């Protein structure tokens, strides 16, 4: 069962990944097949586990100020800055239309 083009396009939008060629898509298909093996296990009457940490204690921190005040360091990572603000484009830049992308989906 192949992953449909609609799903691939949806995934590209959500995760900003680019299934650039057939190899990338094949890898995705194989990964899904590998994970699908889980379906063979009988889990009737078993509570789902969503974290291997479920028996660990969630550590609670005291409400003290212990961090911050490192503006200069943080801004070193910024390509562009304006008076200690990070600079970003005016809004989310939408993924280019399918025709304009160099993606595997072009050929499908």
């Amino acid at each position, binding site marked *: 069962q192949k992953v449909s083009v609609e799903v691939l396009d949806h995934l590209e939008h*959500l995760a900003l990944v680019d299934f650039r060629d057939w190899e990338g898509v094949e890898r995705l298909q194989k990964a899904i097949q590998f994970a699908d093996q889980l379906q063979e296990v009988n889990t009737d009457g078993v509570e789902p586990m969503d974290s291997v*940490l479920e028996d660990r204690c969630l550590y609670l*921190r005291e409400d003290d100020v212990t961090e911050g005040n490192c503006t200069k360091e943080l801004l070193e990572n910024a390509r562009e800055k304006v008076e200690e603000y990070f*600079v970003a484009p005016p809004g989310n830049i939408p993924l280019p239309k399918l025709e304009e992308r160099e993606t595997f989906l072009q050929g499908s």
Partner: protein
Amino acid sequence: LAPWIPVVGLEIHAQISSNSKLFSGSQVQFAAPPNSLVSFFDASLPGTLPVLNRRCVEAAVMTGLALNCSINKKSLFDRKHYFYADLPAGYQITQQRVPIAVNGSLSYSLCIDNKMSQMVTKTVRIKQIQLEQDSGKSLHDDARSQTLVDLNRAGVGLMEVVMEPDMCCGEEAAAAVRELQLILQTLGSSQAVMAEGQLRVDANVSVHHPGEPYGVRTEVKNINSIRFLAKAVDYEIQRQIEELENGGIILNETRAYDSKLGCTVPMRDKEGKQDYRFMPEPNLPPLILYDAKSLPANMNHQQVINIDWIHERLPDLPRVRREKLVEQYGILPEHSFTLLNEDGLAEFFENVVKQTQMKPKKVIGWILNDLLSYLKEHSLTVKESPVSSFLLADLLNLLEKKEISSTAAKRVLAELWKGEGKTPLEIVKEQKLELLQDQKELEQICQEVIDGQEDE
């Protein structure tokens, strides 16, 4: 034309009042230099991990208890993914599957026909309360086609309170939010000042005909005050009704309230239905809370949150405080409503009552009619009042002892507002406002007046 039933639900984000953020130790403070209150975790630098702030959990438990919720002894954290410049990690840590509190209720009061004397109590169900991170702030610079990002707010703890669609108009929504605001401020779990972004409200609005299923709902954002909340909701209800009556349809969209134009407009940047790809937060185990029965024996008490302990220490909520004021001082319910609606007014009233012999039922008139209207006229808060409770009590004592008349008292009060530091007695003497008690003196004055008349 068949009648329309409007349906209004609310999603309210209250910033938790704490020293540091939900998952990091950077400071929570309004209006600090940009990006100065940001830790490596807040900036989503690799190799950092979330560490839960105990105070934030306590704030959420307090709020849940005050809203009659069931507190989930086990709640979970999840990641909600979306891309935006002020969300450096590309996801928000929230509680989507099992939030900390569920199934509560909030009672609030409304005046019928704007008459304070006819108040009715309504209830709205609280679906849930969840802990989540706030995002940073985006400043849009349209001129230079760029957005400036300040992460000071990124990671601040929020309580999202979800109110079921039990409300039917702007007035109900506003009253419910006002009561929630008072509760949060009484608990201290949030300062809930809307102007500083500590309380943000999104409204979900739809309309339908009686007997038919609920209509398509729109989400209204960018509501910056309780007054605008009422206006935005009422506008949206009207817009939807008009649209449907003209044969149009309602889109399931997000709209922004424009306070200048008094209308809602579709929001850009919200393309269709978002897929947030919720997944469990892999770095945080479940949050376990205890009560008196389940308290573990050998745990470090700093690591244990006891719901019963918190419950025992809840302060009197506004509703209880109002009832106590009515009972203790014999004032009317609508009086206690106004007393609690103005920050500091109830304390002012009680201080005056303590310092005067005048009955509370009479004092309340001076507080609500004279003091409050003056403060409103000059846009002052109770704290900023040039007339202290001490001075007012002093004045009311003169009135009570019949040393001055009621009219004279109002004149003295007018003088006191100037805040020139004079005592009521000094003003009375200056303006010769003393009531004459001496019978002989009164007879003499009357005689002089009569004599004066005869001369003409």
